């Protein structure tokens, strides 16, 4: 079960809701399912979530005012497990999250994340969703303070007979808020993938902007993919955009790379990596980058 690796010097391993081992810096505490970040200086921590079969747990994370923290999350959940994470970013908090889904499950796994951002809080999150097994991810971001800013980037792989479903919501509940999501997926074999991207701007939230891109690249004839963009806008003075597409790899791109001597396989691999790789850019950690490249080899191509 525990084949996780530490990419950071500070970490906390949470197994079925209990802290299994940890090395946390000053001003960051974990107790009874609650993690509180009050660090004065920007810091990087790694959080590892372990759940046994059919177990569930709630994690609450509080990032206090003006606190800056980089989080590396590793999710390792067994079949039937259910994780519910809630994160609160107080005023001017800055959080970068790289979240790696490292599950190997036979039965479905479900994860719900609710992230609340208050005044001028900033959250950038990269989800590397290359797990083995079916998965349901509901990731909701609520911009509850003026100037709050959420950027979400996803890299998803659905292969073999996996069924994966993602719902990403960014809801603007205050004026002058900014939301952007870029959800990228690759589907192989008989894999299935649905991405629902939802941008909601409620009434009165003028000066807000909601942008989203949902793209899925399919490799094989048995793949099933759907990318659904939704925009619910109840205010006039806003900017909003959406894009969605499902398709095969661009033949002209392949030709270009092949014309420089790369075999078709190498060319496909380079293009697929390029498609998924930007998710790592939320956090500047060389060890993590190297690790992610290893994991990407799963994509094969």
């Amino acid at each position, binding site marked *: 079960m525990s084949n996780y690796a530490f990419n950071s010097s500070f970490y906390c391993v949470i197994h079925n809701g209990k802290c299994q081992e940890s090395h946390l810096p000053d001003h960051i505490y974990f107790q009874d399912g609650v993690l509180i970040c009050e660090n004065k200086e920007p810091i990087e921590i790694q959080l590892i979530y372990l759940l046994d079969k059919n177990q569930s747990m709630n994690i609450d994370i509080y990032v206090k005012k003006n606190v800056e923290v980089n989080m590396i999350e590793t999710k390792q959940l067994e079949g039937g497990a259910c994780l519910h994470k809630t994160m609160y970013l107080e005023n001017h908090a800055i959080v970068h999250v790289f979240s790696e889904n490292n599950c190997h499950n036979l039965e479905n796994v479900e994860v719900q994340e609710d992230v609340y951002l208050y005044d001028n809080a900033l959250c950038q999150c990269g989800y590397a969703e290359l797990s083995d097994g079916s998965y349901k991810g509901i990731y909701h971001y609520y911009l509850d303070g003026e100037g709050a800013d959420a950027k979400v980037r996803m890299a998803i792989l659905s292969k073999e007979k996996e069924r994966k479903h993602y719902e990403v919501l960014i809801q603007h509940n205050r004026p002058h808020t900014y939301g952007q999501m870029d959800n990228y997926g690759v589907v192989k074999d008989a894999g299935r993938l649905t991405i629902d991207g939802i941008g909601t701007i409620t009434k009165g939230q003028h000066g807000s902007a909601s942008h989203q891109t949902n793209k899925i690249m399919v490799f094989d004839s048995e793949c099933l993919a759907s990318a659904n963009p939704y925009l619910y806008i109840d205010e006039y003075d806003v900017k909003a955009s959406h894009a969605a597409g499902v398709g095969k790899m661009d033949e002209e*791109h392949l030709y270009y790379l092949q014309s*420089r001597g790369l075999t078709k396989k190498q060319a496909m691999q380079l293009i697929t990596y*390029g498609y998924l790789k930007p998710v790592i850019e939320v956090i500047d950690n060389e060890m993590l980058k190297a690790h992610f490249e290893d994991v990407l080899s799963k994509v094969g191509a």
Partner: protein
Amino acid sequence: MSTLVIKDLHVEVGEKEILKGIDLTINTGEVHAIMGPNGNGKSTLLSAIMGHPKYQVTQGSIELDGEDVLSMSVDERSRAGLFLGMQYPQEIPGVTNSDFLKAAMNARLEKPISLFKFIRTLDKNIEELNMDENLAHRYLNEGFSGGEKKRNEILQMKLLQPKMALLDEIDSGLDVDALRVVSDAINSMRSNDFACVMVSHYERLFELVKPTHVHVLVSGQIVMSGGYELVEKIDREGYEWIKELGFELNQEEERKPIILENCGKKETVRHE
């Protein structure tokens, strides 16, 4: 010495025959210029040699040192020593120039190039071509200006050291300074182990990179071959005189959108 021999090449795009029997022999040490009006098959010829899937060879042969090029895949042609500098290089998001260039160089090496040597070679060439220092970390051609894309093609040519480089309108989108940088780069590659086939509409490129052979391609056929004097004649007289020789021109005029500005100008001219 290497030789590329093209015999009676017929090429179709969709159902339409574009090339109607091309014969051309290129030896290393030579620089060939192919000229001709738009829409007569110049780019098609270069793309067919490289193996673009859109172009169907229906008749004829292409051989490089006796090896059948048409039976090779695109990447095999590249590794055999062919290179196409494209008119419209693709933008590929997410793939960095350095990852791409390293992969392309390694594709023709038995042992992968060391990171140190790669960076040194790349930096040297980037400097020579007067390109953006951050190029290595930028995504392949994404957000590049027209001129940057063309210089990136030349950069690839220099790194890959092909035997035969096919350059499709490599001068379009280049300003005067960039054109000089690019032509210097092409000239620096000239040797007895390198041949180059250039397609361009402008005498300026051929002034800077003097061709040894010049061909005029009209309606899918090479109607005339000669030396540099052909470039000068075309620059002076255009292609109208070809008609007098009994050849039909495939005039494919570029349709320009009618905008108010154009109409306004026409009006002014008429009043004068």
